[in-house]
């Protein structure tokens, strides 16, 4: 029996807590955490694991020079010396971690047509080449046009969709591997906007694009 999984696996959450996850994947986790109390609780405890591990390390003594330099600098420090974190907002479905790419709202982004059902906009690339984009699927539209060469991480930001395994709602997180022949469909009542991170190039499965695929792949080699 297939069942939909809508939270990140434990080891992924642990890697996020450890800070060892690629930033593109961490974006997805961060977006999910704003919606998910149970993962946020797990994260708090995972951070505690990190803290305990850090305390078990053999301390590496710090020089007096470092200490004095720091103490001398205190009076001149101002809040400008820190990167300022935006407050969490409750009146927007744009997760805090995505505000760096989205100034006003989803509507103002330069959406590009992918298929009759899908539009997309690339937000950025990670240092490992992973693509971070938003996908907009029209109501009742199918998001089936692509599979991919690497894992794909998705978080639903607005709306919902369903596939063979179940229904996915706002905040839901999923990872899909290359063998997944998933056929997600947006629900009829509204369009669906997702954050999607793909590790490899997107591979189109239509007849025409199947012919193009070797080329796409070569470009990434």
């Amino acid at each position, binding site marked *: 029996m297939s069942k939909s999984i809508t939270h990140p696996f434990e080891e992924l959450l642990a890697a996020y807590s450890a800070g060892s996850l690629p930033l593109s994947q961490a974006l997805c986790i961060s977006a999910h955490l704003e919606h998910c109390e149970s993962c946020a609780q797990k994260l708090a405890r995972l951070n505690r694991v990190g803290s305990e591990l850090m305390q078990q390390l053999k301390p590496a003594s710090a020089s007096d020079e470092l200490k004095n330099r720091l103490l001398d600098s205190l009076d001149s420090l101002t809040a400008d010396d820190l990167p300022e974190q935006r407050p*969490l907002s409750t009146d927007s479905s744009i997760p805090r971690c995505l505000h760096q790419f989205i100034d006003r709202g989803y509507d103002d982004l330069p959406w590009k047509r992918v298929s009759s059902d899908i539009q997309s906009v690339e937000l950025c690339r990670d240092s490992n080449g992973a693509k971070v984009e938003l996908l907009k699927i029209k109501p009742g539209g199918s998001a089936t046009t692509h599979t991919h060469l690497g894992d794909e991480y998705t978080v639903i930001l607005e709306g919902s969709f369903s596939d063979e395994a179940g229904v996915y709602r706002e905040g839901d997180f999923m990872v899909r591997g290359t063998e997944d022949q998933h056929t997600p469909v947006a629900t009829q009542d509204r369009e669906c906007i997702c954050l999607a991170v793909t590790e490899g190039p997107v591979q189109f499965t239509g007849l025409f694009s199947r012919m193009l695929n070797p080329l796409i792949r070569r470009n990434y080699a």
Partner: protein
Amino acid sequence: MSSMTKRSIPSDKLVALGACMTRVANDRDKSAFAELFDHYAPQIRAYSLAREPGSDLVADELVQEVMTRVWLKASSYNSSLANLNTWIFTLARNCRIDYLRRNSRYATEIDPTDMFNEMADEGPDPFQLAQQSRAEESIREGLKQLPREQSEILTKVYLEGKSHQQASDELKLPLGTVKSRVRLALKKLEVLVVR
């Protein structure tokens, strides 16, 4: 079982450090700050050296970054919500992520500032967070009892900052084995049980 239900008593040391935080926050007390430095700077340096052995300059820079944040954010630190040790760990982790991004050979535009919470009063429900502090002792005890192969993998991921793939390469283990060892370790530590 019983360790999960009884309230854990914070160590005297942690209480003393918490008092230092209060003095830094309320009185901008530099001697209290110096006490925090004496305790945490060697830990932060060890954390940095675990990832980059021999890089003393990087380690010093991390101390400077973290302790600067401690000074500037002291007033927003809420001891009833977050364990001080855990707060310092998250600051050190965030500063390290930032440092690595700035010094990476392969640039990315992704700014991590808004991705990792620095304040404990957002995110999980404060009441539940307070309850969780009872689990702290059990995490410490649990870590001591982990089989070596499991604690080794947690060390790689948390302290050396290795991805699962890197850990798999270094330990010459299949990726799936690395992931399942992380999962087994976390299961033993009971950190994934949502109460």
